[in-house]
């Protein structure tokens, strides 16, 4: 199977990855060869075969559902990792754009 440029662009948009036209071309070729390889699974009869279970998740392993305090030092590290901040708060681009006039 072969993915169209439109499909690649759509997947890249879903994954929020900006790709140049040249990259769309290259990624398309890479994905085609990988999808061609994994296609062999379609030949395996999996009727009535259950999906592999998730790794063991033991309910006893859940921690108590309560907030963990963080120390001042940890807080400082978190704030220092912000790509942009103002007054110790995380600064992010606006989710809603200003209405166009």
């Amino acid at each position, binding site marked *: 199977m072969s993915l169209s440029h439109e499909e690649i662009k759509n997947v890249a948009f879903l994954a929020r990855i*900006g790709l140049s036209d040249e990259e769309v071309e290259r990624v398309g070729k890479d*994905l085609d060869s*990988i999808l061609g390889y994994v296609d062999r*699974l379609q030949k395996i009869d999996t009727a009535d075969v259950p999906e592999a279970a998730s790794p*063991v998740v033991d309910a006893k392993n859940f921690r108590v559902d309560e907030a963990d305090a963080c120390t001042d030092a940890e807080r400082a590290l978190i704030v*220092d990792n*912000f790509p942009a901040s103002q007054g110790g708060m995380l600064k*992010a681009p*606006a989710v809603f754009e200003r209405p166009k006039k």
Partner: protein
Amino acid sequence: MKSANELTLTEAREALDHAEIFSLELTKACLAEIQSRNPALNAFLEIWQESALQEAKASDERRARGESLGVLDGIPIAIKDNMLIEGRKCSSASKILENYVSVRDATVIKKLKAQGAVFLGRTNMDEFAMGGSTENSAFGPTRNPHDPDRVPGGSSGGSAVAVAANLCLAATGSDTGGSIRQPASFCGVVGLKPTYGRVSRSGLMAMASSFDQIGPLAKSVEDAALLFEAVAGKDALDQTTVDAKPFEPAWRENLQGIRIGLPKQAWGQGIDGEVRTPVEHAVSVLKRLGAEVVDVELPYAEEVLAVYYIVMPCEASTNLSRFDGMRYGAREHASNLLETYLETRGENIGPEARRRILLGTYALSAGYYDAYYKKAKQVQTLIKNAYADALTHVDALLTPTTPTVAYEIGSKVNDPLSMYLGDLFTVGANVAGLPAVSVPCKEVSGLPVGMHLTGKAFDESTLLAIAGAYEQS
């Protein structure tokens, strides 16, 4: 006589216990070797010289008082750059996390600190542990100490090189499809991927969460066992860790009563002669030690790679969605939120990680989920059953670790599929959740070759006993 940095962990432990050496001496010897060889090898991304010397001094002072924090007290080790150490940079060799500083310790780091280990620095890797050559690092490739024109394997290539070139006594790695065992094989060291659920993944940057597992890279099987034991155990911060019978070494000199299976399907496939011959020789050594070696059926030998290259990118694309430039990491400044996401992820995530994100996003997208993800998870069930069947007849399965020896840098970068095919013998243990170890073959003509043993779930004792008997033979 060996210089201090050339000692195995076990030898260093003994020398420390008998006051024949100091941790400061061991640490200085490693740091000197790093200074001299790291510029060419690029195994370490950052060296923590001052704190390492302080940690070594503190360990020596403890020992002088007759105190010990454990078997790793005073032992200089290296840490793969995807395990968090509070207050230290941790980048997963990605540009997007180039300046990220860890807020807390990973559980394995907590355990290593509690045992008094000395941290030399963080090691290079394929970005987000994606790759088998350490060429996918945003900070340049690591080189194989046996031939600097060749790759060290990956993704834990920096750790494998640090051990092989005696820049440390042992190192941590993580393994999602072979990332500990394959570089161990290419560099001639021991690499263990424990059973899924043995070692806490808390504080390990996630790639494919249902396959990821932390393990040791070491100079001997016994060293690998010591480091494994130090980091294993159930952890409240990782729900997938299991309260299993703790690992206990059960070393043996002969292999009487041990049955080893050679999976027919794997041995029939394209294995280079320079790999096949040394591994076949290793098989003859195991027989001489008393092991019974039999051919076994292990169906789905090719499908296992296909399952891996669907499930892994699906999980990776989900895990890597957090790197969007909002709460941490690099952020490109664009005109609006959408453009900020697109540019940040497009500019700061490398080609291989982008490829896997796109593959995973595609396989999980509406209309394709059943054909890819669901199908792969069904075939995974068949593979798990096939391994379980095979391992009812034998104690371990034996193959080469990789179909080829280390290849030249740059020779596979433009052909991802051919790079992926190098994982053929290692991914099965991850897909089936089983422990596996790569041990250097003794009789090689040139570059190192690894023998790969896969064992029963939570029976690392038998697995390492077989590996250890071969090593000591």
